[in-house]
């Protein structure tokens, strides 16, 4: 059996010899894992890499991966029961970090706090702490960096703690961002 092997060597070898790969000829840097395909003209050191190790790509952020529904015009009845958003359900990869963002615009009056909740249980505060409070007539962006999570969760933002009953709050964007892999 004939085996095909890519032209290869450590970084030091490639840098020192700096060859011109033929058009379509692959070359592998065994030190960095970078793979280049020649164009018949450009010497190795000036040739861009067309391939990156999957490990590098996979550690990069993936951006917004899920969008939830904000509820616009919520009248606060009672703390710990009024939700500002619908469910945002996502299957979390324990190897990755996530950030959830919730934007509100002006309140009609009052002061309230927001809490990120795992909705199916209704009691589990995902990040185990109270979050930013809002001043009267003030829009805000709430951002939670989530703890390490694995599997499916349905998350929602609810009103908690100090508040003024009967006030109206306006929700806007509610979404989940993948901010990269744990190193």
């Amino acid at each position: 059996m004939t085996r095909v092997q890519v032209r290869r060597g450590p970084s030091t070898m490639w840098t020192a010899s700096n060859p011109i790969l033929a058009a379509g000829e692959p070359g592998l840097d065994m030190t960095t894992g970078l793979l280049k395909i020649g164009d018949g003209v450009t010497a190795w050191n000036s040739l861009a890499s067309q391939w990156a190790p999957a490990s590098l790509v996979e550690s990069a952020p993936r951006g917004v991966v899920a969008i939830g529904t904000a509820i616009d015009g919520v009248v606060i009845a009672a703390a710990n029961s009024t939700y500002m958003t619908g469910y945002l359900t996502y299957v979390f990869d324990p190897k990755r970090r996530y950030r959830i963002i919730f934007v509100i615009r002006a309140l009609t009056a009052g002061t309230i706090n927001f809490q990120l909740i795992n909705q199916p249980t209704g009691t589990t505060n995902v990040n185990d702490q109270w979050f930013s409070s809002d001043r009267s007539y003030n829009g805000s962006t709430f951002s939670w960096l989530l703890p390490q999570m694995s599997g499916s969760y349905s998350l929602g933002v609810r009103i908690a703690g100090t508040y003024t009953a009967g006030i109206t709050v306006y929700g806007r964007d509610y979404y989940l961002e993948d901010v990269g892999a744990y190193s």
Partner: protein
Amino acid sequence: MVKLQFRHGTTAQWAASNPTLALGEPGINTTNNEFKIGDGSTPWTSATPTYAPYSFLTNAPRGIVAVGAVYDPVPTIAANVYMTPILQYTFDPTRRYRSIYRLRALAGAPGGGTGGTFQFWMVNARASDAQVGADHITSADASFYSGCIAEWLFTFNGLADLRIKTSTFFSGTTTTAYGGEWYIEDVGKI
């Protein structure tokens, strides 16, 4: 002419035989486009490095793609006054974007009153200042001497001349505000 093909197989085929590729020998999984280069000692299922399909890179966020200018201070504020000059950008409809505009403290109570509320829209000057995004997002000021962030997650198709203006809803008649920064982030493929 001899046709050269990389060693290849489906996920099931690779898993069943689990071969050890020779040093520098390429192998492709035709089920998921996984691409591995052998090191001469590691069997396929645990071999490294692997190469990611190009689509992975095109899906990834590209970070800040445009930085706009801000007025500092903003000319005297009234309803429907522009808070920023125009920022032109050509948007890819297959990608998602976030606009962040930071406003620093207002100079005083709007209109000489005791406080005020400001709301902001992001609009497209190329289309009669139609608002961009599903709804206008607002971020209001707590009274005066207060900073805030107006933030929108949005999609758009093609060339836009964006700018941020006050909405019709605010208290008082005039005041002075100071723009901090305004930029557009590419937050990944939809």
